């Protein structure tokens, strides 16, 4: 069964009638690391929003492990780390509470947690601490996010995606502003997750990096322009030609 299967998905924003995504077909088996590349405005983030279920597709069908998104949403199967611009960085929230938002699906099962929304079980904090430790941000747990640097923020959101224990990870430009050393650590974590059957889709502009680590590359520019092995697809020359064609 496919982790994600899309049939002819199209999408637009209310501000314009132009299609942002045009007839996207995807068949992604579990346990792969997929690079999603394309120029600014290609619709990468939009595709993520649709997979997560935050945005409705205009047309088309989406199945996550064979089920429609709203069924999978409740189980928190899809984890998502946003691109910087999507978050209000002055929001009054501490780092560990950001990571906690990845644990909501594990919290909500009990009635007690509804009656006492501020009482968080100790075992939850342990998972959260561990996730923060993996990305090297444990000592920042009680800091407000507004006090972090760009790369540190990225790592916190990655920790959240890890804490969610999801089977599908959508990472929107996860290495932007992250230093080389942390990037290395994060890649090791992601590869380990992949070994355990996690599907990871990464939107990125770093073609060289993607060529090294991805199993598959999808080039997007409103339509799917190419889809295949990274060595073939992510050739700078081919890509620039493809973009000119589209």
């Amino acid at each position: 069964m496919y982790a994600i299967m899309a049939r002819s998905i199209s999408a637009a924003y209310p501000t314009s009638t132009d299609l942002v995504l045009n007839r996207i077909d995807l068949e992604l088996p579990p346990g792969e690391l997929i690079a999603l590349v394309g120029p600014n405005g290609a619709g990468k983030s939009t595709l993520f929003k649709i997979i997560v279920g935050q945005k409705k597709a205009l047309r088309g069908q989406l199945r996550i492990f064979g089920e429609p998104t709203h069924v999978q949403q409740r189980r928190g199967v899809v984890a998502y780390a946003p691109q910087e611009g999507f978050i209000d960085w002055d929001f009054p929230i501490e780092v560990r509470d950001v990571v906690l938002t990845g644990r909501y699906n594990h919290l909500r099962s009990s009635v007690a947690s509804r009656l006492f929304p501020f009482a968080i079980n100790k075992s939850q904090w342990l998972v959260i601490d561990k996730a923060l430790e993996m990305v090297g941000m444990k000592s920042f747990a009680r800091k407000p996010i507004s006090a972090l640097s760009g790369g540190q923020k990225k790592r916190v959101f990655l920790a959240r995606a890890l804490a969610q224990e999801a089977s599908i990870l959508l990472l929107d430009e996860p290495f932007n502003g992250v230093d080389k050393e942390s990037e290395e650590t994060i890649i090791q974590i992601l590869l380990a997750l992949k070994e355990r059957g996690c599907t990871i889709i990464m939107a990125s502009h770093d073609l060289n990096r993607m060529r090294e680590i991805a199993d598959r590359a999808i080039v997007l520019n409103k339509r799917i322009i190419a889809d295949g092995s990274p060595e073939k697809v992510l050739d700078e020359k081919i890509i620039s030609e493809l973009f000119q064609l589209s």
Partner: protein
Amino acid sequence: MIMIMRFGEALVTFLINGLMVIVNILPPSIAEVFQFAFMQRALLTSILVGILCGVLSCFVVLKGWSLLGDAVSHAVLPGVAGAYLLGIPFAIGAFIAGALSALGMGFIERNTRIKQDASMGIMFTTCFALGIVMISRIATTTHLMHILFGNVLGVSMSSLILTLAVSVAVLGLVYFFFREILLYIFDPIQAAAMGIKTSFLHYGLMLLITLAIVASLETVGIILVVAMLITPGATAYLLVNKLSHMVLIGTFVGFFSAVVGLYLSFVYNIVSGGAIVLVASAIFLLAALFAPQQGILRNLIFNRFQRFEK
């Protein structure tokens, strides 16, 4: 219905008696003001409204809905006038008009490219003009003044019960759904990934704000209620880095300004809505000047020092 009113009345009496125990501890010169029954009702109403607006103001500030609050509160006016014409309780008319405009604006915000400020500006001035025209035909200027600026000293038992019911409902919902509201405002995409119904929350929050506006009509009036839906939250925003703390501080600012404002309005014989809002503004000003991390004063001193170091 009668049962509910009875129960409400009993609850209100109970709360007032509880309040009076606290009030009577205060110095006699202050306590004496609150010996009149109408002052006791005004006190309870103001406290409820202060807390209610204080809590919601945090969400309004973070979501950037200040203008929306302003628009809804103005749009309520024709609802009040319509209710007056039909002879139904004016809170119902106010709620229907407010909710319709809130939902309308929420829909516009989510679905069109019209600049928000323009669409809201047109919408709420139109509603407001309509309301004023209607009221000028049917009621006296005193009535109009009371709706526009509040008349907390004249609060009736039934509207106090309504305020109490709204407060309990709104505060309860905010408490139980605190986590969801937080995530929706902070990161709506993650909220969706967690299976939270975001459009439900979006419109739900707007309805809660509308309810708070309706409940505040008699205390601060249509024109000034938006101040109570912004200032406490904005003050708290300057002081802390955690949403739950922000809500607590917002609540306190709302509560404090309502009580002190009411007292001042009685002692100096000034409009209560104006007094309440001015107290809130004064607290905001203090916070803006002296906040530990983001205060203007701290920044000034800090910059001075840095210049010396160079």
